[in-house]
């Protein structure tokens, strides 16, 4: 990799750095040290059925399409979803469980990200299928961490349709439980419904730059 470009190349400590730090120290020297109390709810537990139900309801609130099916029905559900959407060119991240696509047949061309697909190629794809790292029931959120079956971030961003599969054991009740499970060193994308904007007269409109259609399959076992 090239060395850092720009004015501070090779200068780890600039004059401004030292002056800002000195000004901070002078400013807070006499300030009290407040204790941090965490009296809010953490470590919530819920039965699996409740988690699945709540997650499905909350994702639906964002006007995403949601299916709740046992593992045996996943291939059929995926094939039907892709057919309904008319997906012909599908981006498939590495290490996606092969079984998920076993019923899609020959009408769907699979685009592997090896070598990496150029952005324009991703833009021409009809959709992307992925797994996830964690899901949050209370907020209807899916978190991707670029792990197996998810791929790098651009794969689930540029195509206009995202089909995401969530296993029941990946669902946690609330935000604190998700934070505890996630690794901050990985690039994370938290997704709560399709891309949206409320910039025009505060009307929520699904779909600006991210995938405009989000379809979620929850696998119950």
């Amino acid at each position, binding site marked *: 990799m090239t060395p850092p470009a720009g*004015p501070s190349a090779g200068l780890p400590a600039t*004059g*401004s750095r030292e002056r800002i730090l000195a*000004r901070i*120290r002078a400013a807070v020297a006499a300030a009290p040290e407040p204790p941090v109390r965490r009296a809010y709810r953490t470590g919530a537990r819920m039965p699996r059925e409740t988690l699945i139900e709540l997650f499905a309801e909350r994702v639906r609130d964002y006007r995403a399409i949601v299916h709740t099916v046992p593992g045996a029905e996943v291939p059929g559900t995926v094939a039907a979803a892709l057919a309904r959407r008319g997906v012909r060119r599908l981006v498939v991240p590495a290490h996606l469980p092969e079984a998920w696509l076993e019923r899609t047949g020959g009408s769907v061309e699979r685009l592997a990200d090896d070598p990496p697909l150029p952005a324009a190629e991703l833009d021409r794809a009809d959709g992307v299928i992925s797994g996830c790292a964690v899901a949050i029931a209370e907020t209807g959120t899916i978190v991707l961490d670029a792990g197996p079956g998810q791929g790098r971030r651009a794969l689930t961003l540029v195509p206009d349709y995202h089909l995401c599969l969530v296993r029941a054991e990946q669902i946690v009740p609330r935000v604190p439980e998700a934070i505890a499970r996630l690794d901050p060193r990985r690039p994370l994308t938290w997704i709560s419904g399709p891309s*949206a904007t409320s910039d025009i007269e505060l009307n929520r409109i699904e779909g600006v730059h*991210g995938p405009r259609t989000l379809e979620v399959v929850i696998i119950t076992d």
Partner: protein
Amino acid sequence: MGGSGTSPARGRVVDLGMPEFPRGAARAVADSQLRFNLRKATHTIRGKRANVVAELPDWLELRAAGKAIKDHTLRNLDRYLIRLERAVTEAGGHVHWAADAAEANRIVTDLVKATGETSVVKVKSMATQEIGLNEALAEAGITAYETDLAELIVQLGDDRPSHILVPAIHRNRAEIREIFLDHMGEWGRPAPEGLTDEPRALAEAARLHLRERFLSTKVAISGANFMVAETGTLVVLESEGNGRMCLTLPETLISVVGIEKVVPTWRDLEVFLQLLPRSSTGERMNPYTSTWTGVTPGDGPREFHLVLLDNGRTDVLADEVGRQALRCIRCSACLNVCPVYERAGGHAYGSVYPGPIGAILTPQLRGMASPLDASLPYASSLCGACYDVCPVAIDIPTVLVHLRARAPHPPAERTLLRAASWVLARASRLAGVQRLASRLRRLIPRRAPGPLAAWTDTRDVPPVPKEPFRDWWDRTEGGAE
């Protein structure tokens, strides 16, 4: 670089050369379309916020924790910034320190120039608006393309943002359609022919206009909602996906972030990722949140620069009452409940930070030398609605009163208050003045003279009784006669 003549003293938040608040507000109040847009928007969003906040039984505990984490961080800000710098550097990023707007603009401009590119995509960032980065880049021949829908509306309309979360809140759909038709072609792909004012069609036009730009631009500039000192992780919350595009597709990413945005640990996000979306857009969660730590080989930008911005923040930190403004997480809940903002709109505040938080942040960042900045602490009825909704419990009314005391006061007012202070210091002096006033009561005018006349435009001077109450009480033994 490194200190040639730059002083971290008073920050330079872009001064829009605006008249003082009452005059700016009067213009907005006279615009009935603007008032209608503002009222509809603020009422819609405050209702949504109230619903999703009521869903959480532990909202007050989250709020208390958010406040405490921010206070703790500010108390130890030097330590956490150093830790952040180390973590970002270890993860492959580069950290720069900017004492003021000019230095930050110079650092970013040089970084972009070093890539050889002449255009950048931007995801909405208050910090870069505060320092006037787009203008600085333009002077260096670099075009900055705003990608947030509302920022795009503002940029195409050669306008100013008027709300933190919904910068084009002052525009309705018909106005937006006009702006798209008239100006998209000047910046890139023109608006589709036959564009309607249907919000969905307007969003589609923005998608088409920006898509090619996202796929081809090599440099992106962002801000950040949070920076985690422990891990070096940056966090951006957004709705549209333009943030993900900017943070993921370009080869170089430059993030300009105020030093107060740091939080100590990854775990602290469990508090703020609950507080911010519910306070801001009134959603359980915003559509997209991106977090990244330095650079990740094979995924996203290959080069990452973090520019840490002071620009007056250390001045705010030095004020023991005013420093709580640095807890602000830019949710804009205080704007949406403020009776003054609802009528005056964002432009009257003459700063990128409008509303109640702007009224305490701008005068502290910029100082109160200009008439506008000195008038901002008075842009409030002190009703306290802003304090109630603030997710980090910033006591805005108290800071407003504190700043009013620090603001420059006209000589007549100072003289009067000095006189009042002398009179009220002793009961005997007060009694003497009251007797004198009673004797001269026929000479007291109905309208106050000189600079006090404005006060009597809408009020009568209270009538002075024939004798002071205390004298009457003594003479009649409490009315017993």
